[in-house]
């Protein structure tokens, strides 16, 4: 377990997405632009700036197979970017979203022939390429969504879509598009799945906005993190809905890279690994915290003072030392020094590797091998 790579950008990274071989990364520097960086040794070198949106870009997703990028923004638009070899530039295609509020998250489906865009317009736009008009068109998932949708996630079968938002409910809906999808095989979510079929609706114990959802790799379960600092996993086949409450601040993003591992990250600055014993999920590790201790112990000899400071503090305040979350120099023990904005699975599908980006400007690649 540990850090594979760590890079510090001079700006907040509000969204990121790698290409398939991780030689390039698209990041949003908390603005209306998307920057593409190319790997050069240990450095990331700026290569392209995708400038078409008018307002803050809320989400970036780079399709690993087809090498297309979808971006969406608060300006109510989404663009699909394709790389034009001869001119060496990224060309945008506007998507016909038909929404009147900000778009919040965009995600390619597993087959990369569709993508879903969540929005503040109480709907999810399911977008596909309309061959007739040579243009990305969309169908809206509206019922029974009651408020802003903050997150979406695709089922491995390319048809079912999980979404969650500020109406405190995570839902699984069918995003079957006639003419684009083949009829899906029956699953535990349902047998007949016409567009907008509601296959499940779940809540966390104390409510709260749903910040992120993910399907399990086998598609049998759905997990979501909410603003009540909990992780909830629902499995329709067994009817079980189990929640794990955590002690820390809420998570804003999660990935489910292999059947027995969920990694969630958010306001607490460390990615947290959960594992299951078959019935419930429990927290096993906060990624990177012991690494940093080891690193700072070897890197800075001046740290010998921290023990002295600790004892002096205990003496002057007459109280036992508590394990505090911050080290003495004002640095957090975690690798990220601020909220983690996004956590991504490996683009090539390696189940033990994930990447995180944060408001501290860091882009970190992790190994979650047990």
């Amino acid at each position, binding site marked *: 377990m540990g850090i594979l790579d760590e890079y510090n950008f001079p700006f907040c990274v509000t969204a990121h997405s790698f290409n398939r071989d991780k030689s390039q990364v698209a990041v949003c520097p908390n603005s209306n632009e998307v920057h593409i960086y190319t790997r050069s040794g240990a450095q990331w070198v700026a290569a392209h700036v995708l400038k078409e949106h008018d307002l803050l870009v809320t989400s970036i997703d780079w399709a690993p197979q087809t090498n297309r990028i979808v971006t969406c923004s608060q300006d109510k638009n989404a663009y699909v970017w394709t790389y034009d070899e001869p001119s060496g530039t990224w060309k945008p295609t506007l998507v016909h979203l038909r929404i009147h509020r900000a778009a919040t998250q965009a995600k390619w489906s597993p087959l990369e022939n569709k993508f879903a865009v969540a929005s503040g317009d109480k709907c999810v736009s399911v977008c596909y390429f309309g061959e007739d008009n040579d243009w990305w068109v969309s169908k809206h998932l509206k019922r029974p969504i009651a408020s802003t949708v903050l997150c979406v996630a695709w089922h491995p079968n390319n048809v079912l879509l999980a979404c969650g938002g500020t109406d405190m409910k995570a839902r699984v809906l069918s995003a079957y598009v006639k003419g684009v999808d083949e009829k899906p095989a029956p699953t535990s979510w349902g047998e007949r799945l016409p567009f907008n079929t509601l296959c499940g609706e779940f809540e966390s*114990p104390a*409510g*709260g906005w749903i910040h992120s959802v993910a399907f399990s790799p086998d598609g049998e379960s759905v997990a979501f993190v909410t603003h009540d*600092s909990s992780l909830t996993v629902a499995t329709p086949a067994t009817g079980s809905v189990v929640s794990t*409450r*955590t*002690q*820390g*601040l*809420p998570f804003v993003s999660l990935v489910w890279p292999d059947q027995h591992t969920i990694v969630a990250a958010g306001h607490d600055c460390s990615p947290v690994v959960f594992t299951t014993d078959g019935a419930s999920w429990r927290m096993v590790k906060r990624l990177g915290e012991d690494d940093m201790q080891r690193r700072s112990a070897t890197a800075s000899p001046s740290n010998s003072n921290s023990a002295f400071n600790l004892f002096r503090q205990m003496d002057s305040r007459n109280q036992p030392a508590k394990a505090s979350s911050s080290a003495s120099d004002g640095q957090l023990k975690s690798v990220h020094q601020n909220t983690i904005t996004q956590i991504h699975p490996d683009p090539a599908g390696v189940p033990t590797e994930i990447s995180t980006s944060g408001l501290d400007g860091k882009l970190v690649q992790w190994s979650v091998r047990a």
Partner: protein
Amino acid sequence: MAHRKLVIDNLDAEHQQMTEQMQYVSTKSTEEVVAQVDQKAAAVRAAITRGNSIEALERALADPPYGRGMEAAQAANAQLVSEILMATRTQDIASVVSNISEDARDVLLKYIYHGLARPAEFNCGVLLSWHERVTESGGLGSIVRVMSDRRTV
């Protein structure tokens, strides 16, 4: 803030509709809930007399009255919880908190904040010492859960 008496959000029809939609509505009738709290009270007070704060808390915090129109039952239940908190000795607080269920612990924190918001009716000193122990075992997560839960007590 005396000049800001008007809640402008109330003038917005859409807002009103949204608030009603998002509010928690109990499936039980007011009378049922009041009767349930009354019924609970006897068992809880018996547990307090035996000095069993854990059992008393588990009972008082199970299925608390939530939602609109339950004000009487809510006040009665808050009073009941407060009686337990008062009756527990300071040195026992930590062990009581670590022995109640996670669910009960989060609900207990709701009642602690309910009490702290009404300093004339509750003993805030005692509530603060409970607050310290509850947040020690539940962390910031417990506080966030109370804030995000629309089922208020």
